[in-house]
């Protein structure tokens, strides 16, 4: 461990500090300024995954963090490598993913001189990190690393970046591993609140018991807080229905009778409408995103709001809460459950919510997820492919999505019954997320089967990381829903731009995904008819020594329903055409 007089280089201190933080995997790609850090890596216990593009390193770190709860680490060089890391940093910032980025920087004496591969990394990443720091002396490295991991994983998690000039890595320092107190006193303004305010907790409990039309509106913060168990307890003891946002899928089992699935722009009718008609929304680790609320002034007009979030700035940012509770979602939910118990023990009865729940289950029955059957000879229905894939998978399977129609179909049609079985880019909506994130997830959970579900637009952005997967022996499976279009954009152009298709057609012939997959060392399978779907999935699931790409040739005209058009009230949700006749039931 730490002895006062151990001399070493900054680079050795960096790797040692990462080991002290129990990092087992780094995703990265070396280059000029970060070179010194790659030398001591040869003697380290840490596994390094050599990516093909720095963006891949960042998304792998995110995928790793999503499924393990531990911070993902990406290490790249200066300049273009640092700028390539910007997208994953922003993605992690939007979705509150704990991540530590390490970038090389030109030597301290060259900073500001427009040196080769120099860029103002801390300036560029200031607004896409929770915190960042340019470390100017090797003696500061251990504290900087400890701080970075502390900041990334506590409070509202997020990405932290350390920028390390080459000479800072090369020069010698005396090793010292900072204590908790040293870390804490170096951050005098950083004290995340963990426990809820007792008066607010009590008020929340009273409000929950008094509500006649309550809904638990559960967001990604509940996964970050590892609060699935206490959420289930709260839901079951009160019988209140649960909606899980795109970032929260899996935190409450889809198979549970109280689960209404995902709300919002492409949410289920039951989830979206229940929120609209509710008299109380219990928002747990959710942030009233515009994709949830639709037009804000008509969102859940009769609902009082209990808002639990660890980030005080989320309180009142979008919708003013009646009961704001700042704190850790797990601890606060536990406190609320206890307060409800205390109230019921002292004779307070819960309001009768049976009439409300039968309305909600009415919506579930009348408006199930719907899609038309494929017409013979036409493309496959993507929903069918996903349902078949789900039927052949178990609850432990991790599904990692890109961004677009396939993401919404995956979120809607997959049954998530386990927390941390769903990984996607929610806030930033980063196309190309799924392949590298799936590799990161598999690296973090080698025991689990990891399926990436991707679109052809997304796949072409980051598919080269399948080379990484092959060479590094991190086998993932890819369900490529190929409709030859930028499907979501196409859907908007069809519905809102009078079918004037502008720059959304990719190609039906190029690339040849099977050959591409094979050239990257994967098994490639093309599926064109419904009969082939099941066998192809079975074949893919039987291959575990390499990655598999299953290309499903899907119907380009298939659209995601339900849909709330942008800027419109959630009351005006577009249901699947076959359900239009039941519209009046939404009231």
């Amino acid at each position, binding site marked *: 461990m730490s002895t006062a007089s151990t001399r070493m280089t900054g680079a050795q201190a960096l790797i040692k500090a990462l080991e002290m933080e129990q990092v087992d995997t780094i995703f990265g790609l070396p280059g000029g300024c970060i070179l010194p850090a790659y030398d001591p890596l040869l003697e380290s216990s840490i596994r390094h995954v050599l990516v093909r593009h720095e963006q891949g390193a960042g998304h792998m770190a995110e995928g790793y963090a999503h499924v393990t709860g531990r911070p993902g680490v990406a290490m790249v060089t200066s300049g273009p490598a640092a700028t390539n890391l910007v997208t994953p940093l922003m993605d992690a910032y939007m979705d509150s993913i704990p991540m530590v980025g390490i970038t090389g920087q030109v030597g301290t004496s060259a900073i500001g001189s427009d040196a080769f591969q120099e860029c103002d990394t*801390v300036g560029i990443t*200031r607004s896409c990190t929770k915190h960042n720091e340019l470390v100017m002396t090797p003696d500061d490295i251990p504290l900087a690393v400890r701080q970075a991991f502390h900041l990334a994983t506590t409070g509202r998690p997020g990405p932290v970046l350390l920028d390390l000039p080459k000479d800072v890595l090369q020069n010698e320092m005396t090793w010292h591993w900072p204590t908790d107190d040293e870390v804490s006193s170096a*951050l*005098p*303004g950083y004290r995340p609140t963990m426990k809820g305010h007792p008066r607010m907790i009590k008020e929340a409990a009273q409000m929950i018991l008094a509500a006649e039309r309550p809904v638990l509106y559960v967001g990604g913060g509940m996964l970050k807080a590892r609060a699935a168990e206490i959420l289930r307890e709260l839901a079951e003891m009160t019988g209140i229905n649960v909606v899980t946002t795109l970032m929260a899928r899996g935190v409450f089992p889809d198979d549970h009778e109280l689960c209404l699935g995902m709300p919002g722009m492409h949410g289920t009718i039951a989830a979206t409408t229940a929120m609209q008609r509710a008299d109380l929304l219990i928002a747990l680790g959710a942030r009233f995103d515009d994709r949830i609320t639709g037009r804000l002034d008509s969102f859940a007009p009769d609902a009082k709001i209990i808002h639990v979030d660890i*980030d005080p*700035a989320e*309180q*009142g940012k979008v919708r003013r809460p009646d009961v704001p509770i*700042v704190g850790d979602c797990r601890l606060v939910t536990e406190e609320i459950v206890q307060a409800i118990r205390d109230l019921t023990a002292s004779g307070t009865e819960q309001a009768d919510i049976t009439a409300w729940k039968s309305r909600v289950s009415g919506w579930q029955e009348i408006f199930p997820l719907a899609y038309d059957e494929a017409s013979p000879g036409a493309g496959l229905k993507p929903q069918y492919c996903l349902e078949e894939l789900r039927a052949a998978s178990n609850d432990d399977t991790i599904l990692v999505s890109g961004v677009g129609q396939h993401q919404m179909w995956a979120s809607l049609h997959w049954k998530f019954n386990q927390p941390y079985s769903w990984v996607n880019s929610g806030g930033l909506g980063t196309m190309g997320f799924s392949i590298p994130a799936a590799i990161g997830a598999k690296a973090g959970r080698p025991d689990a089967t990891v399926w990436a579900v991707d679109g052809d637009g997304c796949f072409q952005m980051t598919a080269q990381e399948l080379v990484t997967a092959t060479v590094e022996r991190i086998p993932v499976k890819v369900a490529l829903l190929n409709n030859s279009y930028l499907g979501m954009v196409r859907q908007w152009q069809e519905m809102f731009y009078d079918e004037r298709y502008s720059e959304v057609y990719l190609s039906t012939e190029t690339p040849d995904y099977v050959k591409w997959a094979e050239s990257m060392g994967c098994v490639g399978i093309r599926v064109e008819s419904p009969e082939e779907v099941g066998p192809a999935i079975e074949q893919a699931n039987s291959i575990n020594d390499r990655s598999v790409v299953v290309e499903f040739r899907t119907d380009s005209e298939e659209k995601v329903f339900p849909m709330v058009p942008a800027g419109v009230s959630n009351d005006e949700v577009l249901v699947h055409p076959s359900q239009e006749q039941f519209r009046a039931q939404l009231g």
Partner: protein
Amino acid sequence: MTAFNPHGTSLNHGILSVLVQNRPGVLARVASLFARRGYNIFSLAVAPAEDETQSRITIVVDLESAPLEQMVKQLFKLVDVVKISELDPRRSIERELLLATVRADTGQRSEIVELVKIFEAKILAVGSDAVTVSLEGHPDKLDDFEELLDSYAIVEMQRTGRVALPKLDRAARLRAVNPNQKGKVS
């Protein structure tokens, strides 16, 4: 700092006294947060605080651009921010410094000297056709002075932006804002 108000402030302004760790880039963090979230700054003054490891930033913000509560909470998310005090203008002492070079030929010079006397300003330099004056005081007073100077063709002018501290006798009213504990600005 997207808004420019010729008189420095509007009626609808708030004053934040932000104690930050004195680290490289901290001012950039504060400024870029305001820019990114669309908050308007009327003025900003920064200097080391009583504890030399810390700096105090006095920010006069436009409350029409965003609620003060959100500004405070977002600011507090910056790791280098140690403490934020929201200063109520009625319970604080505010000061600002103005430097101005005004065109003044021999005929006008005495009028300007008169103005300087009335305002208890200072003449710092006199040239053949211009004078440079300074005035330190409450920003409202500087506004008035500036308006009157305006009729004499101001060649160049610089105001520092206000600095503020809570009034001593009402120190107890200083509203130390810690959104982490309260969930909202008290």
